[in-house]
Structures are given as C-alpha cells and as structure tokens.
C-alpha cells in the first residue's frame, strides 16, 4: 500500500473536517477521491502531506508517518492544490527553478523540460502573475512533477483549462501512471473526466467514507434504474412505449427507463423495428449517476 488512512479524525473547533475516515491507495493506482464541497478532501490531502495533524487515527505514506517524517514524505509527493499560489512576481521558469532548489533537483534542464512539456516554453520569461488561469494551472502541475515524485496528489487538476488542456493533463496523468508507475490521488468535481482515468474511487461526504471501489463495484452497492437515451425518429404516444416508461427530451431524444441493463437489447431491437435509431446512450451506470445515488442513500440513513 502506498497510502494508508485508518480511522482518521480531524476537528477544526467544533467542526469535524474528517471523521473516522479510512481508505487505502495501492502502489501504481489512480484513485479518484470525490465528494461534495466541504467533504474533507483538502484536509485529507493536507494530512497526507503532513502539514495538518490528525487528532486521531493513522496516516502512512510510502510506509512513513507524515507527522514525524514530514520532509521525507513531502519529498516523495508532487502536490497540486487549489489554494496554493505560485510567485506572481517571478517568471514561470523562475518559479520552477526556485522549487527545483527546494526539492533538491540537480538537473538544470528539468524546469525547461517541464515548461516545454506543458506548452509554456513561449511564456517562460513572463511573470507568473500575468499568466492566464489555464497557464497557471499548467505551471502548478509542472511544479508538482518537478521532482519525478512517486506519488501525485492532484486537487482539481483540470479546472480552468480549455478542452485541449484537459485532454493533455489527463493524458499526462495516464502516461505517468502506466510508464512510471506513479500512484495518483485525483480530486475533481468533473466526474466524467475521472471516469476515463481512475481505476478506483473513494466517495467521501462530511468527512466520512460513503463508499469505495471500482465503478462496477460502486454501482452494485446502489442498484438503480438504467436510463437509455435514444436518438430515433419516433413520436411518443403518452408516457410509455410498449409498457416501458418513456419521455421525450428537449433535444429531441427519447429517454427510456428500464429496470436493468439486461433489458436494453430487447428495447433497442423492438424500437428499431418501429423507427430508425441513430444513437443509444446508456445512463445510470456512469460515475455521476452512481455518485448521486450513493450520496442520496447516505442522506437517507
């Protein structure tokens, strides 16, 4: 296990930011840490870095205690947080050179390589304060990768990026994971993005673990109806189609609700006899639907 969090609680005054939280991250895994705002993701990342002290419980990163061996732990973690700013009065390259010194990086070419890799080479001498939101984010990511860390903790690494930037960052995360075996913890609110890169998820809410596992494992924990969105030239008569609940969507598609995934082929076979079918989208098993069902279930308890 690369990261172990066991029964960890952290209070700020009366408020429990993290409440008996437990989860593990295996070496070489990409884990999605998801939850609503204020769920405790930032506090968790900070505890992993040893800059926030848990009130109780155990945190281990690469077998080390982030509290007593903080700087050792921090030298193995590349971290990107939403709140940490870079030095706006220094240029992009000066920022990376500065952090290269702090992380004890000897190769003077490393900052340049990263500027190149993140498409910032043309702006390397521009003050970081004059960077656009997307450029700042890329510079922050470059900073996180400076020391070739075996662990990456990334909080919203794609927010503020344009579509090309998002694709580039997600590709980079996958590449580091598959080629270098980097362990990644990814926090994001854009769940469909996580779906393409994460192997496993931990869902937290109000500091507690709601559920964890792979997407199929999570889906199994909260069985729900399967939504099928179909683009077909068929006009609905009423609120059902051959006994299956259905309704037209504003964009012209038709949304069917079936009780399980197994009923989808039958529905499509039937429908394609009655009309021309152009596309079929399955919902209800994607991360977003599962996430909402799990949080909903948590609230009911």
């Amino acid at each position: 296990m690369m990261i172990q969090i066991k029964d960890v609680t952290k209070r700020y005054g009366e408020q429990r930011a993290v409440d008996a939280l437990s989860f593990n991250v295996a070496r070489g895994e990409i884990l999605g840490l998801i939850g609503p705002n204020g769920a405790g993701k930032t506090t968790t990342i900070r505890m992993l870095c040893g800059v926030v002290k848990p009130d109780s419980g155990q945190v281990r990163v690469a077998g080390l205690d982030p509290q007593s061996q903080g700087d050792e732990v921090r030298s193995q973690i590349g971290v990107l947080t939403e709140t940490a700013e870079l030095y706006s009065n220094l240029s992009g390259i000066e920022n990376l050179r500065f952090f290269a010194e702090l992380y004890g990086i000897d190769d003077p070419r490393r900052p340049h390589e990263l500027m190149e890799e993140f498409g910032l080479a043309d702006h390397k001498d521009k003050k970081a304060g004059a960077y656009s939101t997307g450029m700042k984010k890329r510079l922050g990511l470059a900073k996180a990768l400076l020391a070739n860390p075996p662990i990456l903790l990334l909080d919203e690494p794609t927010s503020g990026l344009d579509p090309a930037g998002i694709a580039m960052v997600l590709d980079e995360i996958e590449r580091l994971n598959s080629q270098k075996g980097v362990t990644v913890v990814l926090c994001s609110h854009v769940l469909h993005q996580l779906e393409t890169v994460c192997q496993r998820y931990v869902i937290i809410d109000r500091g507690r673990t709601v559920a964890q596992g792979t997407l199929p494992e999570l889906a199994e924990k909260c069985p729900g109806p399967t939504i099928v969105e179909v683009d077909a030239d068929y006009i609905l008569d009423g609120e059902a189609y051959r006994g299956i609940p259905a309704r037209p969507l504003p964009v012209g598609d038709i949304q069917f609700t079936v009780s399980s995934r197994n009923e989808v082929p039958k529905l499509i076979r039937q429908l394609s006899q009655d009309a021309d079918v152009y596309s079929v989208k399955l919902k209800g098993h994607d991360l977003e639907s599962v996430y909402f069902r799990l949080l909903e279930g948590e609230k009911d308890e």
Partner: protein
Amino acid sequence: MNRRAVRAIARKDIMSITSNIQVWLPMLIVPLVFAVLFPIGASFAIRATDTSTSSDFQELLDVLEKLPQSSLDSLKGIFDSLITDQQRIAYMMFNYFMAPFFLMIPLMAASTISVDSFVGEKERGTLEGLLLSPVDMRSIFAAKALASLIPAIAISLTSFVLFAVCANVFAWPIFGRLFFPSIAWAPLILLVMPAIGLLAVLINVFISARVSTFQAGYQMSGFLVLPVIALMIGQFTGIMLLDAKVLLAIGAALIIVDYALLMAITKRLDKAQIFESQVR
C-alpha cells in the same frame, strides 16, 4: 539546515523586495534623508549661526553640562581639543545626536523587509506551496531572517558611509580636518546595528503570525521605533550620552533579548502548527 534551500528562499525574498514599491521606497527614502540631507542641513545651519548670540546653541551647550559625570569624562578630552563653540556643537550634533538615526535605519529596513517576507508570503497565497515543499522550518526561518538582515545591514552601512562623507565634507569649513566618526561609532556599527536589525526581524515573526496583510504588519511594527526615539530624547535632554560605554551596554542588552526571542521562536517552528494557523 538545508543550505541550498536557505540560499534559494533568501534570494527569492530579496528579489521580491525590489519588485514591491511599498517595500523598497520607504527603505531608501528614510536613509537618504538621514544620511545626506541631515548632515548637509546641519552643517549649513551651524555655519550660518553666530554661536555667541544664538540662544538655541547656548541651550544645547547647557544640556551638556547636565550630563552624568561618566559621560562628561568621556567627552572632556575631545572638548578640550575643540576650540570654538561652533566646533563643539557640530561635534556633538554629528557624533552623538545623529547616532539614533542610525539605529532607526536598520530597524526600519529590517522591519519592512521581514514583514513583507513573512506576511507577504501569507497574503499572496504562496506560503502553502513553501510549506508543502520538503524544506524544514529552521531552514525556511533562517532564509527569511537572512533575507531581511542582509539588505538591512547593507543599507545601514551604505548610509553610514554616505553620512560620514557628507559630514566631513560639508563641515570641513568648521573643523578644517576629519572629525567624524568618533570612537563611539565602532560599537554602534559593529554591535548595536546588527543586533537591532535582528531584533526587528524576530519581533516581526510574532507580529506576522497575527496579521494577514503587509499593511497591517507594517503599521504594527511601527512601534519598534519608540525605544529609539526615547534614546534620542534622552540625549537631547541631557539624561544620557550615547558614548561607547552606553552603546556597548545597549548592544549587550539587545543580544540577550535577541537570544531569548530566537530560542522562543525555534521552539515553535512546527510545520503543521504553522500551516494550520497561517494557511486558509
């Protein structure tokens, strides 16, 4: 201690001073006024005044009479060698009355830079990244103290040299020889100046922990000049004279206070504690 990180952080902080006009402007204007305008102004004023009729000058000389015996003893030899009242007044003015300004310069410079270095990092949101790096708190603290002290001492020494040149040049018609500095400047420059700069840095560590903007920190640290103003008043009213002995004693006291504060700070350098109290 991580020397490489200390150097990098100190260099970064010193660079940040030059890019922030709020920081470097007061740091340069005050020393320029003290080191250049004051000696020129004082030289002309003394030369233009008839010392035998000016009541102000007589009062100044009367103050000297009131000084404690030990101070008078240290002045006696010098005063006997000075012939005119004009020379005596110029000598007192430059060598003693102006001395407190040279405590003010390192104090203000170290204070301004250290507030920027400590609070600025917090205000600009960069403290988090710094604390998330694998650099121990002692190194971060040492770097920030050095980044404040080195420029403060450099500015102070430059001001002193400028002052010495201006004093000797513009008061040449009064003395006809080099008369500045007196021996009292040795402990002032070598001991009191660095010690008072360090004191400003250390006190600002405590102030910075309690404020969230550079402006607030800068204003709060303003009270640091009060003891220096007290010294100034003390001299003008004849209670004491900043001679070598008094300055040595002040220097020794400052070193003791510096040491106590340093111990108190190094005990509190816990990264998690600092992060939790200083990072939003």
